[in-house]
């Protein structure tokens, strides 16, 4: 019995190895995961898409793992040249054709991204010549710590930078960190409503730092480090969620010092805050 079972083991191992070898060339052409990549996506598949498009000369931009306009036009040009339907979607056929036409050195590209190097991946040029390592001063630390995100670019809601969002998240966190999520989105929405209103400054920083406008700014709580939830609330508000019902003011009835605020007509209450016109 024992003899047979060990024979079986060998057979199993052998067949495993054969399958692995057999599959290997397959995985090279099926390198992408099964997803249909569309504009706005982020992640490893996008890195691969960009690298492959760059490898055959369609994509000139940075390989950053965020499917933006540059990638979109590159993919459409590729689809046109290869007789595919031109839709900017990387589906099964497109991915197959692209994988057949190009090379992709996954390990090398991810290494460059992790190190934070500036690099390109054009075909026909030795890859060593396409890397510009980061300055000496910071290169060491970059290899030491793994980047927090696989991609080096982020999608952002129209017209706002990461720093704007951070600043608003600071204000939202300082003002409403104990509030329900909806209340945080509402506070962010009030900031945006003020930016659009004729009666307030026209920039985010102008509204936030208007003297006396927010207590969190006056007492320094705005400089607490906001959590991801506050940031998400800000992004929601920028993307068009306004739980406040177009409010331009809000206050906490338990702590409000100004009598004047009670004269505003109220719209609704979320958590501890009352939102007013």
């Amino acid at each position: 019995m024992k003899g047979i079972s060990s024979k079986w083991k060998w057979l199993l191992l052998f067949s495993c190895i054969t399958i692995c070898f057999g599959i290997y060339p397959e995985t090279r052409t099926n390198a992408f995961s099964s997803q249909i990549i569309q504009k706005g996506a982020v992640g490893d598949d996008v890195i691969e898409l960009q690298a492959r498009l760059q490898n055959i000369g369609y994509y000139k931009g940075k390989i950053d793992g965020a499917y933006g306009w540059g990638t979109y036009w590159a993919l459409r040009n590729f689809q046109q040249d290869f007789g595919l339907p031109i839709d900017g979607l990387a589906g099964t056929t497109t991915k197959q054709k692209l994988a057949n036409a190009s090379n992709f050195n996954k390990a090398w590209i991810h290494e460059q991204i992790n190190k934070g190097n500036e690099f390109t991946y054009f075909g026909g040029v030795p890859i060593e010549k396409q890397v510009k390592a980061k300055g000496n001063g910071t290169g060491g630390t970059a290899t030491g710590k793994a980047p927090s995100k696989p991609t080096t670019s982020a999608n952002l809601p129209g017209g706002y930078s990461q720093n704007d969002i951070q600043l608003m998240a600071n204000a939202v966190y300082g003002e409403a960190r104990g509030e329900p999520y909806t209340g945080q989105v509402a506070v962010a929405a009030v900031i945006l409503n003020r930016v659009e209103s004729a009666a307030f400054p026209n920039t985010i920083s102008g509204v936030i730092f208007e003297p006396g406008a927010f207590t969190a700014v006056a007492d320094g709580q705005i400089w607490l480090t906001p959590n991801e939830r506050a940031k998400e609330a800000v992004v929601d508000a920028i993307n068009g969620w306004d739980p406040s019902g177009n409010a331009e003011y809000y206050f906490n009835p338990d702590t409000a010092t100004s009598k004047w605020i009670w004269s505003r007509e109220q719209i609704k209450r979320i958590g501890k805050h009352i939102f007013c016109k």
Partner: protein
Amino acid sequence: MIRNIVIALLVVVVAGTAFWGYQEHKEKNAVLINAENTYQRAFHDLSYQVDLLHDKVGSTLAMNSRYSLSPALTDVWRITSEAQSDVGQLPLTLLPFNKTEEFLSKIADFSYKTAVRDLEKEPLDDKEYATLQSLYTQAGDIQGELRKVQYLVLKNNLRWMDVEMALASGKENSDNTIIDGLKTVEKKVSGYGETNEMNPTFTSAQQRDENFKNLQGETITKEEAIATAKNYAHSKSKNLKVNVEENGKGSDYGFYSVSILDKDSDTELNMDLTKKGGYPIWYINNRDVNKTNIDLNQAHTKAEAFLKEHDFSSLELFESAQYDNIALLNFVTSENGVKIYPDSVKVKIALDDGSVIGFSADEYLKSHKTREVGNPNISEKEAKDKINSNVKIMEEGKALITNDIGEEVLCYEFLGTIKDDTYRIFINADTGQEEKVEKLKNSEPVYENLI
């Protein structure tokens, strides 16, 4: 001996404390003066800008030719923006400066719109001339009041910080010259407010408040609101805590706020519905999403199914974006191949299980109506010829957009590139005018990784 040492030690401690205290006091004063100076600068700057504004508006009254009028109005526009920025730096706790800001923004709107217009073809009409004249008088009034306050501030050496501190400590009996003076300014301005003979299209802020006036349907009851919200929540749990509230009287439109707390999963759905017709304005069903199991394209399919289920028809995906483990999809109405940009609906999908965790139809409900999308006057070829020849056109279509002055216009939409940048260009399909040119944003590098 020990006594002497103790005494010596105490002396050192007392001297040290005194020195430290003095240092702190000095620092505090330095900070206070710094803040005070910022306020003073903003205030004196403001009265200077209003002075300048008055003069400039005055000189435009005497101008006739386009060559001098356009630059002068542009200058007025610039000065109002400076003045607005000064107002924004004054302490808001002292008094609401809203009316003054609104007045400034009205002048800004008026001057901008007239400055960019081709005054050769379309000179100022009588009404606009009258508007300009009334703006001139009003600017003069404000200038006078501000000058008065400024004189008192300088003469009595008044400090904004004193006023602010007195207010903070609840004592309002200190010298109120600043507050009273500025209140007079504010009152003067609010007096003009409604009686202004300004064309309603000049006030851009008022336009947004369309308040769902196009909605059809009967007013719903609280129970109906709850039923609709439950329909969206899809919760199978029996252990629900439902709460519904009406809007306060400050709202421009009637709505119900429904919250449904699912005690089993400890998730809460919040939703606002219009009273008229019971349309969902937005809903948020937020939770932490820590994994990505489905891709953006699948999220797109899920969102489409969701919209179909809730009777939002003829919508087409306009933009999609992935933020970590969340997908945001923006849909717009599409009518006979014309994209209606003001009608936008946003759906937020969790990429772990594909559930809808957010939805906003705010803009859609405000602008959606049965429209007569007319036929274009000019051909696509003609429109294309209007585009800067450096732009390489990649995609074309038709779209309805809201232009600068808030009118809905039918346009040809072109997507094109110059080098690495992508542009969206709208050419008016009736007049051939370039309505809007946007440079589309690429994703931004994550700075954390750049340092």
